């Protein structure tokens, strides 16, 4: 035992002085003055008593204070319930601590520590037990059994993974497509109204979406079925767009995109190419669009290119046209996947085109 214990050093060896030893106990006022003691006792009991009253107050308030009442701008019911129960709990806690500090015996106790490790004898005996168990089973002598068991147990990991397959459907290229298609109308995402070029002033930005996403739209001209529920949200998460009108003289689009806008009206994906927040902050004068999530900044006059921030890709642009009635429609779907990048998103498109 003794040489084992030496392993735990006492933390004193080689110190420049000897440990002066425990300080002596200082009596508290409540230890020496019976009046103070009585007073502390009364204080503790008072705290507990107040807590009881407040808890009962909580029960009364629960029924007495209506949910729709307000008190100085607070929801009165919430305030009354919270204050009563909060103070009740606080008083119980204060009572307990006051009790322990003033009245409970506060003499320090010193307790010995023992090394965490077992004695060498105990260690040896458990090692012996382990190896006896091992040799009784013969696991060391029969490698065929051992290895085949390890194999069988190892393979069990597979079903645990395979059985999770139905957690979700396969991507099947869906991240690369949206509901936009040729001739689909671009509509205001609040009113659901189709948009004419003449409706938009230079410098204006409209949040828009494909007309199939408009909820409860009775007279859909194409008779297309409207999406609902989570199909709607899934589609919206990719197809949301913004329509802006920029002075055509200021637009600096590359050649291939010259006919994607109409009189300075351009349409871009609203979903940030960084990690997918909907982008909303437009600065008219610079025609910059700022993502509120991590502040990627895109230049809408220059093919939606990234000016600053963590996004790596320009905002995808939706090629626009107008239909017979003069409303904005899509020429086709986006040419590249919208939203955040992903592994199989496909190569960089040719920027020089």
């Amino acid at each position, binding site marked *: 035992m003794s040489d084992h214990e030496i392993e735990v050093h006492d933390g004193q060896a080689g110190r420049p002085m000897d440990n002066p030893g425990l300080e002596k106990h200082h009596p508290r006022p409540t230890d020496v003055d019976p009046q103070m003691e009585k007073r502390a006792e009364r204080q503790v009991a008072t705290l507990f008593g107040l807590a009881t009253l407040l808890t009962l107050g909580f029960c009364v308030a629960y029924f007495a204070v209506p949910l729709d009442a307000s008190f100085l701008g607070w929801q009165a019911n919430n305030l009354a319930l919270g204050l009563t129960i909060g103070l009740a709990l606080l008083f119980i806690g204060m009572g307990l601590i006051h009790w322990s500090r003033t009245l409970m015996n506060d003499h320090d106790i010193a307790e010995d*520590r023992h090394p965490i490790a077992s004695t060498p004898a105990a260690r040896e005996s458990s090692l012996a037990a382990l190896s006896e168990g091992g040799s009784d089973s013969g696991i060391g002598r029969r490698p065929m059994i051992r290895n085949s068991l390890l194999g069988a147990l190892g393979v069990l990991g597979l079903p645990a993974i395979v059985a999770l397959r139905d957690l979700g459907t396969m991507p099947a290229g869906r991240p690369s497509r949206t509901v936009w298609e040729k001739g689909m109308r671009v509509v205001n995402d609040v009113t659901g109204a189709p948009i004419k070029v003449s409706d938009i002033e230079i410098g204006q930005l409209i949040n828009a979406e494909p007309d199939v996403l408009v909820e409860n739209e009775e007279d859909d001209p194409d008779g297309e079925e409207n999406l609902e529920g989570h199909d709607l949200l899934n589609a919206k998460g990719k197809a949301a767009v913004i329509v802006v009108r920029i002075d055509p003289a200021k637009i600096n689009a590359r050649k291939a995109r010259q006919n994607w806008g109409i009189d300075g009206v351009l349409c871009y994906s609203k979903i940030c190419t960084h990690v997918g927040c909907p982008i909303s902050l437009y600065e008219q004068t610079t025609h910059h669009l700022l993502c509120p999530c991590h502040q990627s900044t895109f230049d809408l006059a220059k093919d939606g290119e990234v000016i600053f921030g*963590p996004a790596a890709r320009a905002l995808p642009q939706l090629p626009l046209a107008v239909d017979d009635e003069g409303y904005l429609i899509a020429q086709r779907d986006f040419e590249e996947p919208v939203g955040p990048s*992903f592994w199989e998103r496909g190569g960089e498109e040719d920027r020089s085109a």
Partner: protein
Amino acid sequence: MSQQSKINAPKSVSGPVTWLDDRTGLANLANKKFLRKVFPDHWSFMLGEIALWSFVILLLTGVFLTFWFKPSMAEVEYHGSYELLRGLHMSDAYSSTLDISFDVRAGLLMRQVHHWAAILFIAAMMVHMLRILFTGAFRKPREINYVIGSLLLMLGILEGFAGYSLPDDLLSGTGLRIAEGLIRSVPVVGTYTSFFAFGGEFPGDDMIPRLYMLHILLIPGLLIALVTAHLVLLYYHKHTQWPGPGRTNRNVVGEPFLPIYTAKAGGFFFIIFGVTSLMGALLQINPVWKYGPYNPSEVTAGSQPDWYMGIAEGLLRIMPGWETEVFGYTLSWNVLLPGVVAPGVLFTIALLYPFIEQWITGDKREHHLLQRPRNAPSRTAFIVSLMTVYGLLWFAGGNDIIALKFDLDLNWITRFMRVLIFIGPPIAFIITKRICLGLQRADRERALHGFETGIIMRAPSGEYTERHAPLSSTETWKLVSHEQYDRPELEPAVDENGVANPASRRSRLRSKVWAFWYDDDVTNVSREELEEAHSHTDGHHRAEGTEVEGADEPSELEPKH
């Protein structure tokens, strides 16, 4: 056995104890050693308790919330009491959160207490962890408990994220949207993982029920198991203690578990529950009705996640937009590095710290006495530099708010942060180390020459000095009782047979790291120095309790260093 006991415990106690022990033999365990276990006292030991009690509060309030919360993304039309949203289409989850807030009495209170307790839980865990790191409480034999603690912190953060994603309001949906973007950035499996996690395309209608399962079953289950293990180990190891008179590495001095510690800790539980309840009554948190239901084409500007998500946000914000194509496949460094790799690296460093330090010091002994942060200058400086990384990232996570508040240019703040994140931590390291060394030097001075009395003396030569009075032995002990390490010996370059020794290279590297870590430390006073200093002052004036004698005799002046 039901023998007559010699202790005169009242019948109301001895009766049930005997009944239970006859059936369980628990008295074998719950004997004096267990029930009167000694707990040292220090304010910093309460931090872990705050975390524990806020977890209990989360369990209690969380169960209440489950009675009404509907973890479903099915679309419903809202008909509850909150007029501004009436008639709107939204998910069942969001609508039931509105019901809890407006139509269930005490519902709003429970939601707010739950949320405040969650914020407190994670803050307390983090500060508790810093306490452990700064004082060296993670050293052997407590490494396992340190690892458990780090896992608790990580799980706590995940639990919190799952929790505030549940109400399916605009803010929580945006958080999920970002999480989905991060998952997608993982090479090869990212897109599939995202589709499997969300049950198809984002947002789908599976995510809330799945997060709900994680939030109320899986993660709390793991948390409870780990908290239990954490406390069992704590009990088993016995708490560390600060060095002080009578405290050694082989004892533990403090108050008994029963009754003092129980009363204090129990009282503390009620205080924290009380305070969080008052916060729930008075301070609004996560007013989901103001954000509206989730809609993937909308976002609230300037919205901020719970505080502990701040650094993830900061990481994403300061990363430049790098992306590469490899054989037609896309690697989004701009998301992968800050969103997946960096948090993993930071967490791994924190998780493995005890082992890293043990490798440097080569110290394999048990430690039960805490270290003052100044007495481990390099460790303290290292932790401060980690905190600097954390703080800077957290700051960067609010760069838009800073830009707005102080009318600064957002992009310049971001550029500045990109640089600062690399030069800030080393600067913090150097400054902290200097401060620690300065404090060590001051300690040494104090131990040798006592404290400054504020009495100015004039020597016959006309020189002015301040009178120093010696410290009590208790105070001196606190200043000089810390341990300093010896440099580990180098392994010989060749072994006995003259063959090159591979261990030599490693030991040389370690020796170098050791030197970096320890060489600047101010050498502790030696026994001789201390005796010499005291013999110098002793005969003349002992300050302990007695009056300083001969205060007007210039010959007794101590030189001021």
